[in-house]
């Protein structure tokens, strides 16, 4: 059976040694949060994930959820784990203290999300959806709505969902048909069917607050006619507690490849009472703010699953004895060497490790930018951070989930046949990881978001936010000869990204299909360059630490070696990507549809 240890050491390195928290001390979320508190939160979070969630992962996968009538029952143990989670205050980790949250920085939220996903992806879906829902109400709800819904949701007593998808409409939300009719009392009546709604029905919490995209009778066609509603499972009574049952029910539960303990529900709305958030016809924009947070969270799912799959691959590679090292036996007293001596096994493990740690650093940095974007007193800082977050959201969502899946597959490969056998437990990671490339906007759509929206957003300021950071880092390292082996490849990749960006931009202007043709490769090119930036920041922190006396040198040396591996053996993919992008879309569009 697989095991899991939260990567607390790595988080501590990233937070204490790679982030410049001193420079952010004006952030309210950092007030009173010193390194002891950060360490304590990480340690306690890891302990909860390792000892409560991880043991429920494989049994939950096997049991799945159960539908009886219109009630859904989660696997054994899920309820207790959820109770422990809420009793210990975790739902409110990063949420506003005005409504009972702890108001801690988002990098701790991201760290906790990664560990939850790694320990039990399915279980993590329930709090994750709830988190997205309260965040949206917090950002866009009226004061009354906030007072009504937030305290219970932040306490974890009530959870939430997002209801976009319908049988005929997934990516293209302009096709939404669910209806909303205005009533005299200001509320609405919602009718329609939503499908594949995660956490749509379950037995973990007393109430479920659905956020539903629907269309008022006189709304314009397409995405400009969508409005967003709060539709609770139970209405709230005068005292703010559970009232009457609302007209929404779960009509079906889907059987899935992975995340089998996460309830994926068909939700039927029949004259259900709904409350408008914001204005009519502005729903999609509001939903997008939830989706930005959720997209980062989905990216973190890829990272978390990669992390746990990698840990188990390492354990296996140290223990499994097969063959001899090509340069002579390393383990002569045993019948064979452990497979970790073989270069190809190392390639798989290092690709995994370099992805995981590079991605984690990028995520932690981006999470700090989230805090700055939301809370920094200086408007200019908020804006700059906002650009970074907007740019990195599709990159993190798509690249982390593509690579997350790839790493779970590498873990299976390292395990050989044992990896394919269910009892070993690592095939579950691969099944669980696959969905993250599809939901929250498919990765193809993320790439279109990057090329179609983010490249041109804010007069190019959004994209520039990345290049500015790269130039700053290169400038700061210019006098450090030991950094050259990292800054050189970073500078080269950044130049390549810049020139490719200009080329894509030009092609797009001539032919919009070119944007679509370039998009996925372009996103990967961007992601790899961002990873080079991330590894360079880590290498700098590691070198500085090694210069200081008496440091735990193994840790830092390993960081440097992994950074070298990334620069030498992963970053060069950018060369091929550049070529593919510059080749343009002609060959993609040449075939007649009938020729496929």
């Amino acid at each position, binding site marked *: 059976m697989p095991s899991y*240890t939260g990567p*607390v*050491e790595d988080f501590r390195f990233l937070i204490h040694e790679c982030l410049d928290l001193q420079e952010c001390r004006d952030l309210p979320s950092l007030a*009173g949060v*010193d390194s*002891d*508190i950060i*360490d*304590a*939160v990480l*340690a*306690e979070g890891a*302990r*909860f994930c390792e000892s409560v969630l991880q043991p429920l992962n494989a049994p939950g996968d096997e049991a799945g959820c159960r539908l009886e009538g219109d009630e859904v029952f989660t696997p054994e143990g899920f309820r207790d784990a959820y109770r*422990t989670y809420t*009793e*210990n*205050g*975790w739902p*409110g*980790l990063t949420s506003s203290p005005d409504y009972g949250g*702890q108001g801690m920085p988002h990098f701790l939220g991201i760290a906790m999300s990664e560990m939850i996903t790694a320990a039990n992806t399915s279980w993590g879906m329930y709090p994750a959806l709830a988190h997205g829902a309260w965040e949206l109400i917090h950002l866009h709800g009226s004061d009354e709505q906030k007072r009504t819904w937030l305290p219970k949701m932040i306490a974890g007593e009530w959870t939430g969902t997002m209801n976009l998808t319908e049988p005929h409409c997934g990516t293209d939300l302009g096709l939404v048909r669910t209806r909303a009719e205005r009533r005299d009392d200001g509320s609405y009546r919602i009718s329609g069917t939503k499908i594949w709604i995660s956490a749509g029905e379950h037995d973990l919490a007393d109430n479920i607050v659905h956020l539903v995209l629907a269309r008022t009778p006189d709304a314009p066609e397409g995405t400009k006619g969508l409005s967003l509603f709060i539709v609770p499972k139970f209405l709230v009574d005068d005292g703010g507690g559970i009232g009457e049952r609302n007209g929404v029910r779960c009509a079906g539960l889907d059987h899935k490849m992975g995340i089998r303990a996460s309830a994926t529900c068909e939700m039927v709305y029949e004259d259900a009472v709904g409350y408008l958030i914001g204005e009519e016809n502005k729903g999609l924009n509001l939903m997008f703010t939830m989706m930005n947070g959720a997209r980062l969270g989905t990216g973190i799912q890829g990272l978390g699953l990669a992390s746990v799959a990698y840990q188990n691959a390492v354990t296996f590679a140290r223990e499994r004895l097969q063959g001899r090292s090509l340069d002579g036996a390393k383990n002569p*007293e*045993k019948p064979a060497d452990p497979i970790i001596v073989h270069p190809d096994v190392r390639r798989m493990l290092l690709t995994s490790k370099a992805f995981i740690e590079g991605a984690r650093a990028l995520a932690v940095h981006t999470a700090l930018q989230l805090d700055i974007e939301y809370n920094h007193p200086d408007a200019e800082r908020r804006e700059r951070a906002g650009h970074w977050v907007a740019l990195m959201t599709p990159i993190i969502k798509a690249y982390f989930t593509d690579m997350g899946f790839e790493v779970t597959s590498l873990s299976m490969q390292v395990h050989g046949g044992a990896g394919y056998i269910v009892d070993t437990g690592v095939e579950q990671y691969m099944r669980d990881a696959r969905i993250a490339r599809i939901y929250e906007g498919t990765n193809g759509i993320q790439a279109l978001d990057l090329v179609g929206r983010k490249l041109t957003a804010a007069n190019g300021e959004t994209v520039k936010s990345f290049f500015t950071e790269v130039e700053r880092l290169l400038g700061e390292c210019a006098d450090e000869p030991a950094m050259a082996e990292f800054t050189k490849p970073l500078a080269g990749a950044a130049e390549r990204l810049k020139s490719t960006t200009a080329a894509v931009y030009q092609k797009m202007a001539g032919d919009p299909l070119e944007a679509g043709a370039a998009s996925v490769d372009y996103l990967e090119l961007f992601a790899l360059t961002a990873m080079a930036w991330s590894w360079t920041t880590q290498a700098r922190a590691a070198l500085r630490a090694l210069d200081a006396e*008496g*440091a*735990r040198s*193994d*840790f830092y040396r390993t960081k440097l070696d992994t950074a070298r591996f990334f620069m030498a053996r992963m970053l060069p993919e950018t060369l091929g990507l550049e070529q593919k992008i510059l080749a343009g879309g002609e060959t993609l569009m040449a075939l007649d549809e009938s020729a496929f």
Partner: protein
Amino acid sequence: MKILVTLKRVVDYNVRVRVKSDGSGVETDGVKMSINPFDEIALEEALRIKERGEAEEVIVASIGGDEVQQQLRTGLAMGADRAIQVSADGDVQPLTAARTFLKLVEKEEPGIVFLGKQAIDDDANQTGQMLAALWDRPQATFASKVELADGKATVAREVDSGLETIEVDLPAVLTSDLRLNEPRFVKLPEIMKAKRKPLETLSLEDLGVERAGGIEAVSYEPPPQRGGGKVVESVDELVSELKSKGLL
């Protein structure tokens, strides 16, 4: 009644311990450190006693450099009321620890001093017993169940032959065994609150503790690697192999 609980900072039980390359000790740099699990059980028990209304205050104490404050803060986050750090560098032997706790006992006058039965780093299993002797009070070690009434503690002890139940007059020294309870999780808001609870720092000198000499660590080395096994053809061969190794 006050309860004094001692917390030792040790390498986490999940970590595979590595001996430093120069043999001067085990690697602790960058290694996950935790409260000694038995001490955590002792603290949990003390908190439960307080929650039942049978004690008014739980004080946690630790001996060591400023890094032990981390474990003390965890203890405060679990629910202890205040903490005392007795700062000391280097290795603290059981007798030094017992002498230090005696000073704290004189200062705080607790009804119970609750320790772990042993610390998982040196496995000495001595401090509680030494403290009871120095303090000249009863001891109930290896506790797996504790009940308080009428100024006495009834303690079920885990002994080789099973469970032995004894009664001791308070004040007394208790030491926890593994099955006494399952320690709680720390609640997130308590982590922040712990920061505001009092943490007093004293030193061995402030307390007038004389360090015990006696034991000197000469060198550390990992247990020898297990050699490969050997298949023998017959019982006779087995016996003679065992004899030749001096095992029979």
